């Protein structure tokens, strides 16, 4: 029985460790990452386990490139802020790039590659893990696909991004406190 109790304690500890390990990387990115503000457009579905969320498409979801990159590849996308304060993609590559101080690097995974944008440009669609923000029940119902959202991201040195704050029409939808 003592041995079984030890195994049981180990199993419970492993569950707690799993939960802590899940939470630590995004928490570190939030604490130490560089903050940028981006604009996005919402869609509003529901998740069985996590409730209401707003799915978002960014200006840098589609990255133009002529490079031969396959679907489901890990990629580094370099962004640069233009004169309208929009972060736009500069390049996408498989190796971690060197970036200048006015640039930022995001780590993502190609979804469809190669593909074409609505304008016919060849490129890749990249998923960064920041495409959804979870909001309180019912708070996203009056959102329209035409509404723009301002999202504040925290980006770590490794390129991982975490959503820090999301708002639309001056209304706060989410804030990591």
């Amino acid at each position, binding site marked *: 029985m003592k041995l*079984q109790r030890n195994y049981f304690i180990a199993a*419970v500890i492993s569950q707690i460790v*799993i*939960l802590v390990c899940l939470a630590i990387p995004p928490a570190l990115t*939030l604490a130490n990452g560089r903050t940028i503000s981006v604009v996005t457009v919402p869609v509003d579905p529901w998740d069985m*386990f*996590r409730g209401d969320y707003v799915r978002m498409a960014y200006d840098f979801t589609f990255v133009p490139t002529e490079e031969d990159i396959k679907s489901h590849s890990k990629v580094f996308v370099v962004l640069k802020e233009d004169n309208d304060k929009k972060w736009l993609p500069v390049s996408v590559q498989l190796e971690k790039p060197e970036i200048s101080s006015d640039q930022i690097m995001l780590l993502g995974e190609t979804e469809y590659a190669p593909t074409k944008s609505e304008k016919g440009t060849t490129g890749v669609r990249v998923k960064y893990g920041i495409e*959804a923000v979870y909001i309180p029940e019912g708070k996203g119902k009056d959102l329209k696909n035409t509404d723009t959202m301002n999202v504040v991201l925290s980006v770590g040195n490794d390129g991982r991004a975490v*959503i820090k704050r999301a708002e639309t029409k001056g209304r706060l939808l989410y804030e990591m*406190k």
Partner: protein
Amino acid sequence: MTKLSAKHQKVVVGEISRWQTEGVIDDSLASSLILQYPDYQTGANVSGALSIAGASLVGLGSILFMAANWQQIPIILKLLLIFAAILISNFFGWKLRFEPGNRPKTGTGLLLLANIFFGAGIWLIAQIFNVDTHFPTGALLWALGTAFSALATGLVPLGCLASILGGLWLFVQQDWDTQRLVSNLPYFLAYTSASFGLGYYLRSRAVMWVTLIAGSLWMLLSSPVRDIALLLWGVTVFAGYFGAREKHAHLSSPFLYAGSITILGSILFTTTFGGFHYEKISTELVPIMSICLSVLGVVAWRVPKFKEEMLACAITVILFSLCLGNAEASAKLVSNIAILGVIAGFIYTGLNRIHSTGLVNVAIVFFVFDIIARYFDYFYSMMNRSVFFLIGGVVLMVVGTLAEQGRRKMVEGLQS
């Protein structure tokens, strides 16, 4: 005092009451004998089922509570609540189930609840940090954490939960756009091996059933060659029964029923839809066909007395493989012949080889299904709808009566 199952207890008490009525034994002796075989099994099962149902409901409620994303509760408090819930349920669950163990059913329910809280914790963290909506890792971690707990405690409900979550992971991790059997097969093999291993460790037929059902659903839904893939899976599972029935009789019956139902279901599908005329099947089916034929070979080698059954399964598989790429009509013809052959084979094996009334029943039920399917195939458009339903109803009643008579005769033959 002999511990009987609920079914046997009912039979014994029924017999004692009959002796009492017939005057073979007097009332006091009947009462003392009945006291020897108390009906504790049913009560225990009911209380166990209630505890598990209660734990599942509380767990579901906690997941929905977290999903509601209530902003009034600070994030840190939500995290503390879920960690506390996991630890407290595990602590009291252990105390009640094992040490000292004076409320084992409630303890099992609490341990199940602790593992549902663990899952709620995973989704809470994913919600807090806005982890991607496609998050198969969440289901995998939940399954693994629960499997650790099941291995440590040896509790079947935890094993079932781990197996269900593993099946959930198998489905959600899949790239449904491509539906490639080959690229997803390693995940399938990993899940089935781990889940069967867990079922074996826990000596649980329930875990075996969960794994077999998840496996069949995956074969049916995840491949563009779903009917033949399902047939190959069914044959592999059916062969598994013959490989396991001697040494692991207690665990083998799910393989017999899941295998036979899957084989007949997949062939019945083909008899109606003629669905196995694919243009590009070789690469999709080579791995699973190799696994299937290897299992048949190993079982024939290890259990030589069933090599005829393994040979018949191999012939069925090869016959179907030869039909691949042919026209729909010929596929339907072959599968119509095959289903009758397989039904006859199952009845023969059930009656003469393994003495299983269950296998005979499965075969007869599918024989009735086959007749219904053929009736719809050939007569539905030829008659006025009202006549169709009238005749259809009469045919079903007659077939049902004949099938029941035949089944009774066969079962009586088996029992005698």
